[in-house]
């Protein structure tokens, strides 16, 4: 090979644009003080880990996306649980109509129904598990699975991320009650960060004041009633990062949102020393190996320092939340999907070296479709190999003291703190949203990423370099059985089944009972009280998601439907 062919093509900067020196040495960590900046694992400021023994004590929670299981190309969730492929956690994302807080038959849903995630819209979907005589059970493949996950006490992650989480978290509370399971045993977490989605301007389905109220009501209620549930991630850093911002901004935005929620909950009377450590820190696991490690270490340190500096806590009383990663989907390519397996492995290794307590790997099909079963097997294999074969889990924070890692950890934290201070000096996230300043940063970031790719400073193998490696494509199983409809019959069989199930529920339920529960929800909303209990009762009275959302909207003085396309049902006397 010629020297030129062995030249690294990507620019000598981290993924966030931090310049990287040829070599690092003692001079780069001169100011590092072990007790002040690192501390023992599990001790303030938690740079080295949330727990003293980390993986010696317990491995990370493996998040598995559940959405692929809707389709016949993947095994049902119940089978995945029985076979042990799902053994610690499962994510339940939100379908588009759930994010938008409307029913599956809303005119904007149409062909997208069920394309994001299982479109659970009523307790009726769970059939026998919820004591409902639903013969159709169109969503059997997932509904039975999630019910089993609840029974087994697996960690259920509600990955809605736009504040619509409350619709499904309360639905699952209703399911627990119908199954006779104590709510105190309900394990899971919800991302529940509406601010993130106004920041990245991609899910602004409903007005912010509405989503803000719902998100905060859920946090307030769940902190008091669900000891094993984390009702918010404090900030959906993952989604914001994937929208184009860099790692420093990711941390800054996450903590800015966290502060916004914690301040409000304190105003509602909750105590920071009781709730401050409950939201998990969920970040994006990037392909930039060292920057990911640095970011995870910096995140814990930031949490600890904010607890002391902003909330006046005694360092000895500060507790560290678990830190999780969702591995970056934007690192994945359509070209040569098997390369995505390699990328997942590197992202996962970086996450583990950064000390994560939970992670979710992306499927090699990320750019094309939900996960086929083969992708789940591969990803669980990656995790097992990292855990058992590489030896990296046997000692805590093995990279501590590395000149580069410590320098970069400091550099990422420092960059993040500066941005966070700027956000706070401008009046916090909601003020920055109003001025449009924060959305502008995201847009700039997205453009920068595209430019870097097109100009070649950032290399994506098989996309803008090494094109010879992508032909021919190495075959991997795809989720190819998804029925995408046809010009003659544009709805898939599953979509038709779901719509029929909704129509059937509307005919078969006792609308007097439903109406009574919705009226109570309306009253509670109008009086400015916490809506969670009334929402759970509305689900139990067989209300649908769109009806619950519409009722809350009316209670807040808004029209029934955000888009003016659907009318309030005639039998419902609210507003």
């Amino acid at each position: 090979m010629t020297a030129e062919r062995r030249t690294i093509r990507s620019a000598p900067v981290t993924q966030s644009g931090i310049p990287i020196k040829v070599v690092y040495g003692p001079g780069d960590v001169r100011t590092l003080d072990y007790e002040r900046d690192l501390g023992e694992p599990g001790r303030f400021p938690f740079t080295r880990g949330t727990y003293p023994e980390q993986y010696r004590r317990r491995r990370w929670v493996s998040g598995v996306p559940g959405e692929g299981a809707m389709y016949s190309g993947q095994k049902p969730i119940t089978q995945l649980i029985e076979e042990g492929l799902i053994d610690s956690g499962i994510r339940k994302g939100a379908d588009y109509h759930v994010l938008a807080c409307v029913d599956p038959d809303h005119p904007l849903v149409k062909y997208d129904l069920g394309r994001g995630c299982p479109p659970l819209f009523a307790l009726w979907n769970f059939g026998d598990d919820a004591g409902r005589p639903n013969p159709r059970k169109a969503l059997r493949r997932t509904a039975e699975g999630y019910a089993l996950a609840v029974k087994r006490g697996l960690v259920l992650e509600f990955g809605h991320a736009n504040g619509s989480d409350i619709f499904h978290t309360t639905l699952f509370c209703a399911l627990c009650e119908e199954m006779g399971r104590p709510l105190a045993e309900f394990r899971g977490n919800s991302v529940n960060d509406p601010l993130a989605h106004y920041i990245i301007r991609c899910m602004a389905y409903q007005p912010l004041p509405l989503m803000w109220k719902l998100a905060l009501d859920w946090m307030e209620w769940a902190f008091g009633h669900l000891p094993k549930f984390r009702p918010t991630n404090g900030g959906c850093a993952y989604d914001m990062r994937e929208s184009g911002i860099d790692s420093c901004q990711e941390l800054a935005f996450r903590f800015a949102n966290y502060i916004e929620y914690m301040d409000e909950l304190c105003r509602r009377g909750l105590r920071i020393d009781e709730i401050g450590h409950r939201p998990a820190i969920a970040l994006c696991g990037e392909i930039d190996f060292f920057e990911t490690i640095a970011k995870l270490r910096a995140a814990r340190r930031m949490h600890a320092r904010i607890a002391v500096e902003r909330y006046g806590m005694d360092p000895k009383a500060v507790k560290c939340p678990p830190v999780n990663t969702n591995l970056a989907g934007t690192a994945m390519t359509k070209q040569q999907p098997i390369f995505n397996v390699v990328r997942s492995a590197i992202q996962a290794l970086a996450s583990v070296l950064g000390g994560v307590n939970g992670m979710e790997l992306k499927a090699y099909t990320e750019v094309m479709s939900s996960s086929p079963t083969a992708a789940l097997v591969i990803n669980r294999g990656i995790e097992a190999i990292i855990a058992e074969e590489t030896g990296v889990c046997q000692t805590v924070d093995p990279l501590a003291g590395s000149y580069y890692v410590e320098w970069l950890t400091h550099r990422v934290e420092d960059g993040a703190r500066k941005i966070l201070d700027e956000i706070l000096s401008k009046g916090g996230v909601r003020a920055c949203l109003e001025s449009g300043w924060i959305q502008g940063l995201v847009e700039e970031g997205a453009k920068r990423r595209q430019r870097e790719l097109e100009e070649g400073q950032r290399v994506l193998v098989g996309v803008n370099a090494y094109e010879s490696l992508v032909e021919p494509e190495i075959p991997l199983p795809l989720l190819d059985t998804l029925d995408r409809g046809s010009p003659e019959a544009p709805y898939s069989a599953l979509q038709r089944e779901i719509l029929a199930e909704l129509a059937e529920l509307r005919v078969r339920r006792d609308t007097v009972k439903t109406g009574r529960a919705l009226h109570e929800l309306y009253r509670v909303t109008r009086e400015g009280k916490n809506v969670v209990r009334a929402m759970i009762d509305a689900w139990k009275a067989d209300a649908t998601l769109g009806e619950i959302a519409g009722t809350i909207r009316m209670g807040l003085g808004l029209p029934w439907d955000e888009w003016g396309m659907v009318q309030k049902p005639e039998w419902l006397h609210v507003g």
Partner: protein
Amino acid sequence: MRIIRARPVAEHKAVKVLLAKLGLDDHTRPLYVLAQGLRDAGLEVIFLGTHNTPERVVRVALEEDVDAITLSFHTLGHIGWLTEVMGLLRVREAAERVAVFAGGIIPEDDWPTLAAMGVKGFHGPGTPVATIAEGVRREVERKKKGQGEGP
């Protein structure tokens, strides 16, 4: 601007393209990047954003007299949505005048079906913005030439 001025007088008008997402698909980031990129490449961009119905897309396209519509899909609902859009364009007798492009996640298996409906091009993940701009411009020029030579 330079590109526009360099054109023959007869083709003085910039190529006008409408960008939109249909339904509740929330993957808007690529569309924002594309809107900026196409504008930078000298195209006139009408950006309709999210939560559109096919009726609205077609109505605005005709009101604004655009040369092309670019729709981005990340839900695998593209067949149903595009069936509606193409049907509305045909009803309004604009299917020949307005070139429709689709981007995002569209399996190659579906390209023939969509092409048979009249969709002119597909821009999947990793396509440089310049390639998309060039594709739209070429198709629009081809159409205009075709119309000029017609009876």
